[in-house]
């Protein structure tokens, strides 16, 4: 995103605009201190000590009879200037090293990481106190040390982002395009780290100001010069006598830091919120209206019957975007129905509607879904949950990400049977073993003790099928169950599905884009395009003599029957270009 657009976005955000204005105001006031404050910050008149606000001294006087306004303004110079110095040091140290470590990796990266871990193990306050003892009470020297101490936060940020970008294919493409490393960094890397660095600058500025003020508060700063921290220290000394002295320096410090943090937040929002998110407002969920086309000619199947299903997602402006427009389909016991379509056709939305697990913002707006003759569209979450696991089961696409990495296979298989069937630990373990046996996993006892990352993708998919079968469901919703697998493993998983259908009378709704898979296991097929079912029939019918033009286009794109390319001829290319 362009810098100008980001800036406009930040300023249009009320908090962002307000905090930016406040920061500008503070900086301007501090810079113009000699103009605004009529008094010298050091000039004291003991007779006026603790005097309240007056015309000459709008904020009153401190314990030594010095003008508070002047001290706040001049103090800001030391405080903010010191923070700026620390920030500059931190940026100069952290950003270039982070860039190189993230982009190059290797030995430099290891060495830099080791150093950074060492610096991060040091408590900043203790080091600063020690440095003051060593290097003397010069505030600038202390701020340079502080800069070194906070540099790791920039290093880590930049290194992390750059290492990520480094792995992106577009960086590889740029390399292959013949761009030099400096060009690649300028074109692809700097644009990505710019935003996060700005955010981090605001946050680190806050930390630097707080630490600096903390040092001054301890009396470890620059001696007699006015600073916000020193003013707070003085106020603390007199906390019993004049508690109001805390107010102004505290306010200056608190407001500056709040403005910095809020500004960082606004920049982050401006950079992140490029795509509008659906409105998160909890709305009353109206029950789905009955289907318009509920008088579909086909009689409704016993196991699963969907009529006139529409699914819609809430847009940010409150309107709905319909993605499924009146779908009818049926699954009988012992039957595999293939739901076929390309990406965005609405096939997965249809499957999730049956499970009652549409992603956030999505809902069934019209139509009827019956399972074993019982209406489930608009069912309360509690009642839907009772159906899931025991009657309806789900097999996902990506095997690895669908197992909880923190629990063993055994624990994940035992959980549903203990919950639904009320089995004890021992019986549940037996059941889990039996399930692994069912999905033909060799050595179930060993597998039960393994964690998901210790098994292969094919094995993980079997475990997921075992989990789906754990409470003996009647209908399996399988969403592209073999897409992530190699063909040989795919064939084994399809064999397993076929066997479960034949031996257990399981009904399966198989969502897929692969017509080969359809030919292999499906009894009937429903073809879906742009949210509608365009054609339903037996597999032979659909693949052999499709009626709908879309189905025909789809089949025409299949390369199975296309002839293999003829062997290469030396002059092939030359004759054409000549």
């Amino acid at each position, binding site marked *: *995103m362009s810098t100008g657009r980001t800036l406009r976005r930040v300023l249009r955000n009320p908090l962002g605009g307000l905090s930016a204005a406040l920061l500008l105001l503070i900086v301007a006031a501090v810079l113009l201190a000699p103009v605004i404050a009529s008094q010298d910050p050091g000039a004291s008149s003991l007779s006026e000590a603790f005097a309240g606000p007056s015309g000459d001294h709008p904020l009153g006087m401190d314990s030594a009879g010095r003008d508070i306004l002047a001290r706040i303004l001049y103090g800001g110079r030391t405080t903010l200037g010191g923070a700026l110095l620390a920030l500059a040091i931190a940026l100069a140290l952290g950003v270039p090293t982070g860039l190189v470590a993230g982009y190059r990796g290797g030995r430099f990266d290891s060495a830099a990481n080791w150093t950074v871990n060492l610096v991060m193990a040091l408590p900043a306050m203790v080091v600063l106190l020690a440095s003051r003892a060593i290097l003397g009470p010069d505030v600038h020297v202390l701020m340079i040390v502080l800069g070194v101490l906070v540099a790791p936060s920039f290093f880590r940020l930049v290194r992390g982002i750059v290492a990520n970008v480094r792995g*992106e*294919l*577009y960086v*590889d*493409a*740029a*390399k*292959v*395009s*013949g*761009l*030099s*490393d400096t*060009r690649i960094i300028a*074109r*692809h890397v700097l*644009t*990505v780290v710019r935003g996060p660095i700005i955010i981090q600058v605001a946050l680190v500025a806050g930390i630097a100001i707080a630490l600096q003020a903390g040092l001054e508060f301890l009396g470890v700063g620059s001696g007699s010069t006015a600073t916000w921290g020193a003013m707070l220290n003085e106020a603390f000394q007199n906390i019993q006598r004049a508690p109001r002295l805390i107010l102004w320096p505290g306010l200056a410090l608190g407001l500056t830091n709040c403005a910095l943090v809020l500004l960082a937040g606004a920049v982050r929002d401006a950079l992140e919120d490029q795509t509008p998110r659906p409105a998160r407002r909890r709305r009353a969920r109206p029950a789905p209206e009955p289907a318009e086309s509920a008088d579909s000619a086909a009689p409704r199947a016993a196991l699963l019957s969907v009529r006139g299903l529409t699914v819609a997602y809430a847009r940010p402006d409150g309107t709905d975007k319909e993605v499924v427009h009146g779908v009818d389909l049926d699954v009988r016991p012992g039957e595999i129905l293939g739901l076929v379509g*390309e*990406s965005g056709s609405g096939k997965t939305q249809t499957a999730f509607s049956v499970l009652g697990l549409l992603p956030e913002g999505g809902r069934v707006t019209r139509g009827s879904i019956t399972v074993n003759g019982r209406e489930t569209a608009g069912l309360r979450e509690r009642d839907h949950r009772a159906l899931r696991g025991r009657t309806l089961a789900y097999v996902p696409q990506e095997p690895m990400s669908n197992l909880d990495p923190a629990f063993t296979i055994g624990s994940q298989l035992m959980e549903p049977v203990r919950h639904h069937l009320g089995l004890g630990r021992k019986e549940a373990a037996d059941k889990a073993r039996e399930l692994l046996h069912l999905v033909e996993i060799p050595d179930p006892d060993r597998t039960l003790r393994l964690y998901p990352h210790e098994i292969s993708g094919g094995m993980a998919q079997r475990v997921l099928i075992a989990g789906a079968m754990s409470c003996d469901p009647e209908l399996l919703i399988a969403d592209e169950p073999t897409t992530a697998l*190699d*063909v*040989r493993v*795919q*064939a084994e998983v*399809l064999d397993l599905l076929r066997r479960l259908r034949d031996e257990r009378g399981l009904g399966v709704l198989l969502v897929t*884009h*692969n*017509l*080969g*898979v*359809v*030919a*292999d296991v499906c009894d009937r097929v429903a073809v879906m395009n742009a949210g509608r079912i365009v054609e339903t029939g037996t*597999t032979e019918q659909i*693949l*052999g003599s499709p009626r709908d033009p879309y189905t025909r*286009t*789809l*089949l*025409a*794109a*299949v*390369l*199975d*029957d*296309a*002839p*293999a*390319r*003829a*062997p*290469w001829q*030396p002059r*092939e*290319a*030359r004759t*054409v*270009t000549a």
Partner: protein
Amino acid sequence: MKKTPADAAPSDATAPDALLDVRDLRVRFPGKGWRAPETEVLEGVGLFVRPGETLGLVGESGSGKSTIGRAVLGLVPVRSGSITFHGERIEHADPRRRRALSRDLQVIFQDPYTSLNPSRTIGDTLAEPLIGQGTGAREARGRVAGLLERVHLPSDAAGRLPREFSGGQRQRVAIARALALRPRLVICDEPVSALDLTTQRTVLDLLLEIQRETGVSYLFVSHDLAVVRFMSHRVSVIHRGEIVETGDAATVTSEPRHDYTRTLLLASPVADVAGQRRRRAAAGAGV
């Protein structure tokens, strides 16, 4: 599954007129963690590609098929073996030489979503290889329109961002970027695996059309036998870092000699009920 001398012969054979000639290529990746053993992903691979030819490279995930392409492009370090491109050894080419090579050696990646920088316009992305070769910014921009036309994209696409395009359209942009310097060889790393069936066909047709017109060579890497068979003059089958069989597309994909190729072929389902039933029966009998 050791290769017999008969199987090995075609893959180790060389062609005197080859554009790309890879011999006994070995690549290892360091193991995770300190002093962990290295894992070898390519165990002595040999192949060649002639001018205007497409060599299909088919294998399962983890077989090392993509690593071959990445090694040719210099994106992974080569352990041993040779890569000869247009008569020149390039397996250890220095960065300067690499940048010059990009004029002749290009790539199309699998994922059209991550292979284009989301914050740069299409025109900017297409101008990148031209700028890399020292073309002036103005001239580069002028040539972008021609490139877009070449891949059948509207010329106003140049000013738009990748997110405004579908997967198939983005892949066309990636093809245009690869063609910008009129290369001799393009490594196609699963270029259609992320695309829908109908889009896949149009992208493949575009690649064939470009090859007919420009005489560019392709090293076409894919897991899909049907796609490889459609696209390639010759096909090499790779399994666990070794090439087990190489031959004419028709021969390898209908009468494979190696057991592994046969299993692979029989496990790939076809969109035809009777045909698939036969395949399954054959697979059951074969194992």
